[in-house]
């Protein structure tokens, strides 16, 4: 049984099972409203796949994924607004612009009239922004806390910018009231199911991409950069390139998720892209297990589901709960739920009374390889056992 679940065949089987659940069972079982909610959660899960790669595998604590999510979302929203305006309004000018602005469509909106340009831009704009930022930041070896704070400042500035440009971005109201999606009526229940299906397929594709990246030589290099950046540099690789590539991949995933979020949920506003939502993306990833493939997805969906069921009935309780999740999971279980089996196994193997290893997530030596990937980046792992013998100072 165990060997069946490992290796290439196990992965393929798991992938097919996931596809069957998402594409077959869920639409058949869930009522339309819940299916729409699940679609929204899947958007967060797509963002989480990217964060899992960048943060869990690459050690880059990116607190600005809301920016890329927002770029994708606003590009899609702009296209849908323009399309609605020419389909239903006749004037070709989105409703809120005549309310707050000059009644003219600004020049930088015009390209997004075209569906093809919009679809390209959803991928390219977040990707290019991440490429420029990534090169600027990583090439200069800005890392760790500096990178986290810069990415957070980016999210803050982005939200402030959107709120300030009321006439062209809808300000703090954001963009909403969409009626059609590439010509499909958004009120039609069949089209809603189609939107959900698209989100599910994109999630499956991004999981496949992440899996390939993790198991490639490039994925090994990424983990190496996370654990010992200096040593990777001495081996002749450029860590900045590795980090930039993964940062771009994560940004594109977030952008695509944002573009799917808009037709599914029907609104995008600065409240969905600022500092707090950007950090909130991380908690699901942390709970599920930041360095695993499926952990971030399951964690993100779980947290989003808990939020939507709890926050409306007990809004105050939900915030406390969310805060506690951050404190307990990150503080006491950095490997997330994915590290639980390893933790339990360790407990069982260590005789009572024997001293517990300090890093409780360190696996026993004879353990099969997949488990260590669930560890927190800072705990020593089997692949880098000689780390203790090579203190940080030696490398400079």
């Amino acid at each position, binding site marked *: 049984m165990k060997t069946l679940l490992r290796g290439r065949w196990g992965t393929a089987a798991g992938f097919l099972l996931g596809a069957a659940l998402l594409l077959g069972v869920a639409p058949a079982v869930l009522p339309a409203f819940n299916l729409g909610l699940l679609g929204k959660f899947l958007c967060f899960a797509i963002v989480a796949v990217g964060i899992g790669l960048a943060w869990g595998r690459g050690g880059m604590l990116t607190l600005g994924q809301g920016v890329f999510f927002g770029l994708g979302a606003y590009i899609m929203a702009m296209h849908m607004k323009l399309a609605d305006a020419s389909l239903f309004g006749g004037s070709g000018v989105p409703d809120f612009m005549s309310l707050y602005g000059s009644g003219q469509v600004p020049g930088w909106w015009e390209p997004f009239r075209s569906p093809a340009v919009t679809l390209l831009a959803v991928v390219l704009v977040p990707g290019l922004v991440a490429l420029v930022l990534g090169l600027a930041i990583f090439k200069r070896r800005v890392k760790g*806390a500096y990178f986290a704070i810069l990415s957070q400042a980016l999210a803050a500035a982005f939200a402030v910018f959107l709120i300030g440009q009321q006439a062209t971005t809808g300000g703090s109201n954001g963009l909403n009231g969409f009626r059609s999606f590439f010509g499909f009526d958004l009120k039609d229940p069949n089209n809603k199911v189609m939107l959900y299906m698209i989100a599910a397929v994109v999630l499956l594709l991004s999981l496949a991409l992440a899996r390939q990246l993790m198991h490639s030589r490039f994925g090994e290099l990424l983990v190496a950069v996370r654990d010992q950046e200096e040593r990777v540099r001495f081996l002749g690789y450029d860590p900045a390139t590795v980090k930039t590539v993964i940062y771009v991949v994560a940004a594109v995933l977030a952008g695509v998720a944002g573009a799917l979020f808009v037709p599914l949920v029907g609104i995008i506003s600065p409240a969905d892209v600022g500092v707090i939502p950007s950090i909130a993306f991380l908690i699901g990833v942390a709970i599920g297990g930041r360095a695993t493939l499926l952990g971030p997805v399951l964690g993100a969906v779980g947290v989003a589901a808990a939020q939507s069921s709890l926050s409306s009935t007990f809004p105050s309780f939900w915030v406390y709960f969310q805060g506690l999740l951050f404190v307990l999971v990150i*503080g006491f279980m950095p490997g997330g739920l994915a590290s639980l089996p390893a933790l339990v196994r360790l407990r069982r193997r260590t005789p009572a009374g024997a001293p517990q290893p300090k890093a409780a997530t360190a696996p026993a030596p004879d353990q099969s390889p997949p488990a260590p990937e669930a560890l927190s980046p800072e705990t020593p792992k089997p692949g880098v056992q000689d780390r203790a013998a090579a203190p940080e100072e030696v490398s400079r």
Partner: protein
Amino acid sequence: MELLIGQMFAGLSLGSVLLLAALGLSLTFGQMGVINMAHGEFMMAGAYTAFVVQQVISDAGASLLVSIPAGFLVGGVLGLVLEAVLLRRMYHRPLDTLLVTFGVALILQQAARDIFGAPSVDVRAPVWLQGNIELLGAPIPLTRLFILGLALVCLAGLVLLLKATPLGRRIRAVVLNRDLAETSGVSTRRSDQLTFFIGSGLAGVAGVAVTLIGSTSPYLGTNYIVDAFLVVVAGGIGQIKGAVIAAFALGVLQSVFEYSTTASIGKVLLLIVIVVFLQLRPQGIFSLKTRSLA
């Protein structure tokens, strides 16, 4: 001319608020590597302390003078508890402290909402701080002048503490080389606790100060935390003089940008300036030359 002086002063004033917010961070983030996202909420706690004190002492002048040490104490105790309960276990995982303290920040915000209500409250400024004085024709609000003064006093106190007392010498020793300090008989535990107490206490004082120029809401901290971190990053890790220069530079730049464009574009321009600046000096204005720091 009046306009120039007015703008310059607006920048200095903004810079002094940033400095107050960033001084404590510079201690805890710069010197201990802990990224405390709850620092903004400690400010918020200081601001609510000023509000509560004013409910008890109705004279605005006396209540302000009581609030400043009270705010320091409230912020400091919160910081001490946070350090003792959570952060102590996490010094080897600096990035994770950011997320843990973000959780603490969420909890503190919600607690403030439940205790004081979501609408913002106001703290009255004392009579002797109302009005303006004229400086070469430009009106300067007295409250802002007071905050500038308070920031300078806090700065002087902190520098004095770090450079001229045995306690400060121990803190600096731990910053420069933790292991060596410990081997030499310095209790790093106590030094960590004290650093955190002082840093968080300064956040409380900053909170009291900002009640003079705006109303107090549970979200007060989120407005300042990102800017305060940028000050520390631009100034250089563990560098108080860097933080001072960065705070005033960012304050002046922001008010110039906001004056010549709009508030929102000014914010974006400021961020671009910082990213470009870090291209030139990735370690900030000043960097600590030591073998033990990454």
